[in-house]
């Protein structure tokens, strides 16, 4: 082939575009929508559990998504492809049909935890809740890295 590099670039571009327009569902409690494809990039919005977002572009394990009027990147580890009804509300609204999936209320979930808690009142869930409430912002992390002169060797 005369121009193998151009062919490769074209192939990658087609693959990236092929996923554009598809929908992904956020499968984590929350996830940052970032300005760039890096975990240290600024957060421009926060996507929440069950949010169904349209993909604009896919690159290196990251999806560029439209969220409101903004566009940014979410990592695929926080997502599932397609529409997934993860909450009872989505299930009731009939947000799932055909190839879509309903996971609402399945598996080890809040309901199982609630029963487990009742049966095991000595478990210190209050302390776990407090532990989860400790929040570290991107700004704090960036300051911590800068103050400690931590030269990242790649994410």
């Amino acid at each position: 082939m005369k121009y193998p590099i151009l062919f490769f670039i074209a192939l990658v571009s087609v693959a990236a575009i092929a996923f554009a327009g598809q929908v992904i569902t956020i499968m984590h409690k929350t996830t940052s929508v970032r300005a760039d494809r890096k975990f240290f990039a600024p957060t421009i919005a926060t996507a929440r559990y069950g949010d169904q977002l349209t993909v604009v572009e896919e690159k290196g394990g990251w999806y560029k998504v439209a969220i409101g009027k903004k566009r940014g990147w979410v990592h695929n580890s926080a997502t599932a492809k397609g529409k997934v009804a993860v909450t009872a509300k989505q299930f009731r609204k009939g947000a799932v049909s055909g190839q879509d999936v309903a996971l609402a209320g399945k598996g080890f979930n809040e309901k199982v935890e609630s029963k487990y808690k009742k049966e095991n009142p000595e478990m210190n869930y209050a302390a776990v809740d407090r532990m989860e409430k400790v929040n570290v912002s991107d700004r704090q992390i960036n300051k911590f890295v800068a103050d400690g002169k931590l030269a990242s060797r790649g994410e």
Partner: protein
Amino acid sequence: MKYSILPAVLIAALATGCASLPIDQNALNIASKVWEKRDAIAKTGSALRKGFSDLSDEEEYYIGRAVAAKILSQYRPVKDKARTSYINTLGQTLSRHSSRPQTFAGYHFLLISSPEINAFAAPGGFVFITTGLYSKLKTEEQLAAVLAHEISHVTLRHGLSAIKTANLTQAFSIIGTEAMMEYGAKELAQLTAAFEDSINDIVNQLVVNGYSRSQEYDADSEAMRVAWKAGYDPAGLTRFLSTLNSISGKNGAGFFKTHPPAADRLKKASKAMKKEKLSGPTLKTRTARFQRYAMK
């Protein structure tokens, strides 16, 4: 994991060359397989699930919360806002350099009050360090090594792997293939029983038996790389192990009971670090920062 076991594992892991690229690649492969499987499960919503790696991030989170709740019913959390903020900022900086930068509800770190030298990581990212261990740390690099090791147990899903297959099989068969929004009372009771058994499996592994040698080796290798990637001197690990080794010499209270001598491991770890060219400076500025949060 039990920190009494960590030193042995860390050094032995490095000694056998586990800190090399194949291990890092192994971690990435595990993460990648889990993500692929998760997509498949989300698509089918099916009971094709067989093993711990088929648990969703959400299920892992609820399991982790229960394990954490059990640990915190045995250990008192330290109410210290400044230190809590410090270890959480450091831990979250490290986690972003791991093979699994995000979990269902993120990584959380907590100091627990106990003179024993120990640390635990519950599935989903709940990490605990005893004041006994914390008080032995001398630099931020050493704290980074300890946290990175615990993060690695989470990224490699070692806690989940402790769940006995029978308990998982039972849970998966109850969950079934139906688009079940609400469980019936019978199903909920059965699923909660399987959940409870799973929690006990994990806590037993974390607190009583400890992980297998190979799991510790893998966690150690990952930890070295994570700390190094974040910009730390990976030798923080070996220095902390030296400290533990000297303590072990004074009172061998179970420290290296199931592992080879720490001195041998330390030697091999240093060799492995050299081989992998994992090095970096321990900056005074970071040590000075750590001193502000040190525990005498």
